[in-house]
Every structure is written in C-alpha cells, then in structure tokens.
C-alpha cells in the first residue's frame, strides 16, 4: 500500500480550479519530487494534500485512509508534516521554542526529539536561544524542517525548501532531505531546482497546467530527452 496517494485531484481557490487531475503516489521509504514550470500547480498540489484549499474532485489517501479535505491540525495528528515555502517559522519565538511548537501535539516527546533534531542540524545548537527571525535563510529553513520533524511525521511535505538559498546551502538542504528520508520519513517536495532535486528523487512528477505530464523514477526523468528539452532547460 502506498504511503501517500493522490488520485485525479481537482481543486483551487474560490471556484477557479488550478489542479485538473493530478496523480501522486509515494511509498514509505521514498522521496517524491514535484517539478514543472511556474503556474503548473506544484505548490497548490501540496496545499491541497495538506487541507489548505478545497479539493472538489478526486481522492487523497494516507496509508489507504482517505484524508481528502481534512483540516491541517487533524493531518498533523495523523502523521503528516508540512513546511511552507514562506513564513515557515515563528519569528519572535526562539529557535528552540520554534522546535517546541513542533511537538505541541505530543509534548512528552520534546526532549528526545530535540536531541535528534540537533543531531540532524548541528548548526542550530549554538543559536537555540536566538529569536528565529534573526537567523539566516538557510538556518531558518533548517528550523522550519526541524519544527515539522519534531512531530515525528511519517510523511513530510516540503514546499520549495531551497528557494532563495545559495548553492552551498541548497546542497546542504538536499543532503539533509536524504538523511531524513533514510531515517524512515517519506518525503514529497516541490522544487524549482529540478535537476538537483530529481537526482535525489525516487519518484518524480512533472506537472504542467495542473496535470501530470510525466511520471517516472527520478533517474528515468533526468534521462528522458523530452523532459530535459521542455522542463530541465536542455
């Protein structure tokens, strides 16, 4: 049974559909990457999965259980984590308090998870009492991912985790994503840096105009001349 499966999803904002039948499926140990041109509905698809906009056709399942249009805080309880692209930290809370908000639903796990997160992201340790709003872009991204991981999700949704970061930080984030996945967390992420992202992906989904254009393994997509020509910049 797939960990996360979305079939024929239609949806959008205020009656205007942006998604016109998207299919996504990843297994428990996989990294799935959604790529595609601007306006293809990549981030919209992620938000639809996380219950942030209305799905008016199709179905989304988590381990076989239907979760279509479930409210975000319920999804968190079911083991889903979401890291938005922007505004993904609490700026006036300290770094550690940001992480603490990640275990809001299971406060007893806080100490144990905190150690794990600091192991994952060693640069965070020495800044833990700083307000998160004062951190650099890469550090913020780590805090945002750390916050989501604190709840021990079985699947993590990442919306363009490397947007606006320097190449050095970008590679670091991709490395972290691989480590997190190796620890047993399924990952579905949207990325602009399609080549680099597909390189670490088990499954890739190329969206255009709110529909799947290509769906295959990351490697196969990277090597597909059609994909390369239209979506990976040659």
């Amino acid at each position, binding site marked *: 049974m797939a960990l996360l499966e979305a079939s024929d999803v239609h949806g959008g904002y205020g009656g205007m559909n942006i998604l016109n039948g998207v299919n996504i499926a990843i297994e428990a140990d996989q990294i799935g990457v959604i790529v595609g041109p601007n306006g293809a509905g990549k981030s919209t698809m992620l938000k639809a999965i996380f219950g942030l906009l209305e799905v008016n056709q199709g179905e989304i399942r988590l381990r076989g259980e239907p979760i279509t249009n479930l409210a975000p*805080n319920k999804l*968190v309880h079911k083991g889903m984590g979401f890291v938005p692209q922007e505004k*993904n*930290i609490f700026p006036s809370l300290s770094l550690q*308090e940001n992480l603490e908000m990640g275990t809001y639903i299971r406060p007893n796990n806080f100490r144990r998870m905190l150690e794990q997160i600091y192991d994952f992201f060693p640069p965070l340790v020495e800044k833990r009492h700083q307000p998160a709003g004062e951190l650099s872009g890469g550090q913020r991204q780590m805090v945002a991912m750390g916050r989501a991981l604190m709840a021990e999700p079985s699947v993590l949704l990442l919306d363009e985790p490397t947007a606006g970061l320097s190449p050095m930080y970008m590679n670091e984030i991709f490395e972290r994503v691989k480590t997190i996945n190796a620890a047993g967390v399924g990952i579905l992420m949207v990325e602009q840096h399609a080549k680099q992202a597909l390189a670490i992906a088990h499954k890739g989904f190329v969206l255009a105009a709110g529909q799947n254009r290509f769906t295959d393994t990351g490697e196969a997509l990277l090597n597909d001349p059609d994909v390369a020509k239209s979506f990976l910049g040659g």
Partner: protein
Amino acid sequence: MNELVFFLNNVVVSGAVAGSIYAMGAIGVTLVFSIMRFAHFAHADMMTLGALLVLALTTLFPEAGLAIGLPTAIVMLPVAMVITAIAAVGIDRVFYRPLRAHKVKPIVIVIGSLGVTLMLQGLIRLFAGTSAQSLYIAERKAIFRLEMPFELASRPVIITEPQVILFVLTLVAVVGLHLFLSRSRLGKAMRAMSDNPDLARASGINTDTIVAVTWIIAGGLAAVAGTLLSLDVAFKPDLSFFLLLPIFAAAIVGGVGHPYGAIAGGFVIGFAETLAVFNWSVLLRPLRDSFPTWLELPNNLALVGTEYKIVVPFFILVAILVWRPTGIFKGKVI
C-alpha cells in the same frame, strides 16, 4: 519639602495607580489584537462588568472580608474574575466567532465589538443605575500615611489600601503573564499564533483553544483592573468611553501585539496624564524669591486642566501614530 510631598502624592502615586490600571487593560487589548487582529472596543465595559460583579457579590456578603482582614471586594475578586472570563469567552462565541467564520474584514468585528459595548452598557446600567457607588459597603477604606524622614516635610505621603493591593496585583499579573508566555506550552503556542497563525495551525495547535485562553486572560485582567479602579474611586457605570482611549493609546504606544509594551505603555500614559494635570507652580513656589521681579508666575501652571485630561492620551496617540506607528517596542500589527 511639603511641595515635594505634594508632588509625590499627586504625580507619583496617582500616576502609578492610573498606569497600573491602564496597563492591565492594555494587556488584554493587545493580546486580543495579536491573536484575533481587531481592536476590542468592548474591553472597558468588560472592566466595568467585573467591577459590577464585585459590587453585587459584596452587597450579598458584606462581612466576608472581615474574617480575612482584606476588603470584601478583594475577597470577591477571584469569583468576579472567573465570571468575567467566562463572559468574555461567551461573548466571543456568540458575537465575534461567527463574524470571523465569515472571514469579514477586521474592522467589521470592531463594529461588532461596539455593538457588544452598547449591550454591556445597557445591561450594566439596567442593574446598577447610572450613579456612582462605593465598593466599600460594610468597611471603611484604610489609609496609610507615610511620614517623611525630613524635618521640613510636615505632610505625609498618602497611600490607600486599595492602591497598595493594586500595586501588588499588578506586579503579580505582570510576573504571572511573563512566566505564562515564556515558560508554559500554552503561552508559547499563544505567541506562536500571534506570530504566524497559519503555521500554528500546521503545527497542530488548536486555535480555538488559544482564542479561548486569550479571552480568559483578557477578561480576568479586565475584572481586576475594573474592580481596583472602582475601589480607588467608586464604581461608575459610565466610565468606559473615558477608559477606552487611554487603554488603546497604551497598547499602541507599547507596540500593538506586544504584551510587555502594553505594560510600559500603560505607565507612560498614566504618568503623562498626572504630569500634565499637575500644577507645576506648586513646585516652583519655594524658589519664587529667587526669581527676577519682572517674572510673575501665574498661579496655575498645569499643562491641561483636569477636565481636559482625556486630551493627554489622545495627544500621545497622535504623536506616536505620526512618528512611530509601530510603537516604542516595535509592535507586530500596524
């Protein structure tokens, strides 16, 4: 030295009293603003409601305080706080939450809160009439006279019992609020929601709970502030429009959404009011002989008359909106 004592009584003590009351009101206003993003105009009437409940309870059990040695009103205060807090949560459920659910603009909820103001005023005056009443029913207000250790000061500094209680309770409230916001899980979640409501939801924080907690704190503090104001002077049902402006000014001066700023703002407004209505020629009187003869000081050197006291918070509000709309502590909501 009597002039200095006069200054202490009229500026330092009065300013601290007004400041404490404004601070406790402004904390509620600023918390509501940071969680629900609207200016809660019914806040001053929640203060009056709390005081009214204390008045009613004190009338029912006028002797209750004698056993403990505190004014009966103070003994009744916790009960009134609980009822006011419940009322605040109830008002939100009935009147504000449906508007929020319709995703109206914040200013529509502001108008809704004015509707609540009028309803509360109507109810309060229906039960309490329109005249002032003392909260001391079976007792008398204790007054402490502190003699000054100077030979020239023949007059004492005067502090009343409710003022002392007010200072103590303000301190307790401020420390308690600080511990709640910085240590407790719920308090941190509240700050998180004020920072970024969407992310708070995405972290599994139940925003309805946070809203309810906000109203409980705001309502409880409103009851304290209203009761102690009424103990200090008297219970007046029609106080609210005069309290509203200083409280909002305090919240804005401190930076809206910033609880510690609201406390500072409350004291800024409180002291500014007393400094502005203070007659400065009293302080200059001892020096009069050393002035040149052509300089004849007028008897009244107050910046504004007491009847224009309300101008002071307004002036500060305007000044802060013109020069620094984020407030002295950089509020989150502009």
